[in-house]
């Protein structure tokens, strides 16, 4: 009996001694449905744990929506992770503003800006401080179905202006082909049209001025013009029947089944549409990509890009080891692997050239040549104003409000913030 007790005590002592010496880094990621992506994460964590005595990295995955819902409470609790996934944008700004994140020191920030892309780091910065490391860069462009284009005798690579695009929409419509598929119920796929039109019309300076409330904020002629151009497209009835009752994942399934000529979507759609389509989706040979065309007289450039920059950020109480791990987790080596395996388009310039996937390569090209990268407007402007941008995009698509009303609504929401 005595012996047993002694053994128990010594075991306990051993365990507690072990725990004291060990630094635990808790990492919370969203679900990585792509098997190669998830495997890369697991490999990286295993490798890091093996190389570093006294540091244990625990990686957890959570489904996107529950991740969004739980994060606010999780960040305020003792169970807050040290590192977590972030889409950047308004939600991230709020977290940084309320002091829930740990800023990087200047040396590390400068080093990462150099190695991991300045644009990507900028997306994860707030008020002059940097809070994490970028991972994948996402860009939105117009996909087209080469088979359908050939049948219709159209060459989308010839599209230079928005009017050219509208011409092809008309031609497709006359031939009985759906020009665009869109998941209108989610609203954000519709906001891509409005966003890109606004970017082409007002350019980087105009967008920054709107955000800052200059020139009437959103209630100016540029935003009204963006709405009017969007409505010109809507008048042609470019979307599939019942587009307002369909979410993105269903819509991209329709696109993957060859349901339309065009699809305005980001590079992630490659995997998503193949997963959602009934027979594996469109092959690399069938897919073409063109940038969103220019509007004549617009102040923006055709090389201005709209997209996301996701990454991982550090929480307030994260230990120094977490910074070290982050560097490893999203570092050049990891990003190069992601690029060569076609997992995602990395932000690191040194890794960008390694993308081999035919389609992703085109997106990497668009991203690489970007003259101004605009974060998705519904994220960039925060959850409230961003939500209203989505709302008005959908309302214009259903003909419920005019471009003037949309601009006024946006400005009213901006002023309340």
């Amino acid at each position, binding site marked *: 009996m005595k012996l047993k007790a002694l053994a128990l005590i010594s075991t306990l002592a051993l365990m507690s001694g072990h725990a004291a010496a060990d630094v635990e880094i808790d990492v919370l990621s969203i679900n990585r449905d792509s098997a190669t992506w998830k495997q890369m994460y697991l490999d990286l964590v295993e490798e890091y744990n093996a190389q570093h005595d006294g540091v244990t990295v625990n990686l957890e995955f959570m489904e996107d929506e529950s991740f969004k819902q739980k994060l606010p409470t999780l960040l305020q609790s003792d169970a807050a992770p040290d590192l977590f996934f972030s889409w950047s944008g308004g939600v991230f700004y709020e977290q940084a503003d309320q002091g829930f994140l740990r800023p990087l020191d200047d040396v590390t920030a400068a080093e990462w800006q150099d190695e991991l892309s300045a644009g990507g780091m900028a997306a994860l910065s707030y008020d002059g401080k940097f809070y994490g490391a970028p991972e994948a860069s996402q860009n939105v462009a117009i996909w087209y179905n080469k088979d359908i284009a050939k049948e219709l005798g159209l060459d989308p690579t010839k599209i230079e202006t928005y009017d050219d695009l509208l011409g092809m929409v008309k031609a497709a419509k006359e031939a009985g082909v759906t020009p665009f598929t869109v998941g209108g119920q989610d609203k954000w796929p519709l906001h891509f049209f409005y966003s890109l039109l606004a970017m082409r019309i007002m350019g980087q300076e105009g967008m920054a001025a709107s955000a800052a409330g200059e020139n009437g904020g959103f209630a100016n002629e540029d935003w009204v013009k963006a709405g009017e151009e969007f409505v010109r497209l809507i008048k042609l009835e470019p979307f599939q029947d019942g587009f307002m*009752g369909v979410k993105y994942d269903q819509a991209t399934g329709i696109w993957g089944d060859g349901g339309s000529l065009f699809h305005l979507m980001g590079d992630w759609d490659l995997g998503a549409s193949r997963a959602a389509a009934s027979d594996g989706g469109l092959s690399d040979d069938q897919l073409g990509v063109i940038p969103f065309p220019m509007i004549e007289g617009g102040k923006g450039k055709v090389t201005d890009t709209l997209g996301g920059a996701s990454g991982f950020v550090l929480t307030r109480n994260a230990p120094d080891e977490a910074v070290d791990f982050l560097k490893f987790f999203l570092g050049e080596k990891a990003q190069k692997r992601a690029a060569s395996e076609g997992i995602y388009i990395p932000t690191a310039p040194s890794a960008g050239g390694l993308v081999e996937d035919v389609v992703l390569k085109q997106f990497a090209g668009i991203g690489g040549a970007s003259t101004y990268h605009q974060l998705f407007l519904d994220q960039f402007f925060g959850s409230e104003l961003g939500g209203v941008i989505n709302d008005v995009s959908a309302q214009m698509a259903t003909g419920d409000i005019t471009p003037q009303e949309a601009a006024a609504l946006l400005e009213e929401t901006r002023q309340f913030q």
Partner: protein
Amino acid sequence: MLAQNDIIAPSQTQFQRLFANGQLKMVLIFVPPAILVFTMFVILPMIQAGLFAPYKWSGYGPVPWALNEVTGKDFGRWVGSQNFERMLSHSAFKQAFINTLLVITVSIAIQIPIAMTMALMIYKSSRINTIFRLIFFLPYIMAEVATGLIFSFVLDGNYGLSKSFSDLMGWDKAFFPLAEKPWAFYCILGVIVWKYFGFHMMIFIAGLQSINSEVLEAAKIDGAKTLQTVFLIKLPLLWPSITISVFYAVLGGLQVFDLVMPMTAGGPSNSSHTLVSYLYMFGFIRLNIGYGSAVGVFLFVTGVAFAFLYRNTVQRGQS
């Protein structure tokens, strides 16, 4: 002194008797947990919502007026009545309010009459009636979210029943009711009627079964026709059941949420929100807890005002 003792003594014995009966023990054992749970999960959140409503607050921090030590600012910002003003002028809120009124109207004007007709047909005990009761009650048992998902498939014009129907009618374009205004919300209304009429039917069946058969026999002997029995005897005697049904229909109508989310998520263009789905979408999803609380307060006041009025007018005198 003596008089005082006289007064206290009997009450003490009464108290002791209570204790001896075991009644007090029961009260002491069962009431505190219930009150505690009720306070924690019902009363406190209600008070909180009232306190949060005049703030612009993203939900970070314990309360909007707490000081954030890291930033040196409060977590939220006092905006007074602005949340309410914005709510009342928001077109989507007005639509949500109209929709909620529509749910209530349809529940009372269509659902309850259907439930009553069914109840009158199948309230007598027999095997076949039991089977029908089960069939009509089944939709009520089904989970709301599952029901919503099923109908979102049924009403889909690509592969659902809606497509078959459109093909049958020979339309060249399939009909997508959930993508069209105002059809989207009419569909939700239809599903609500289908799902909940069984519940009201059960209330009426219970009421009908408790009607004294002698009254009905007397009517029969007096030569009353079927319809006369229904309108002059059964319905008046059912009045208490009907008032309860209406009460549930109104309060249930104020709470509709889980059917809306899978069917339309409030779309197209925020045209099919109810008050609760509006609250969820614009309060929680958009990280605007103060605004959501303001909508919650509105919902609460509406519910309480109705319950109070109804209890003191229609249901007056009923136990």
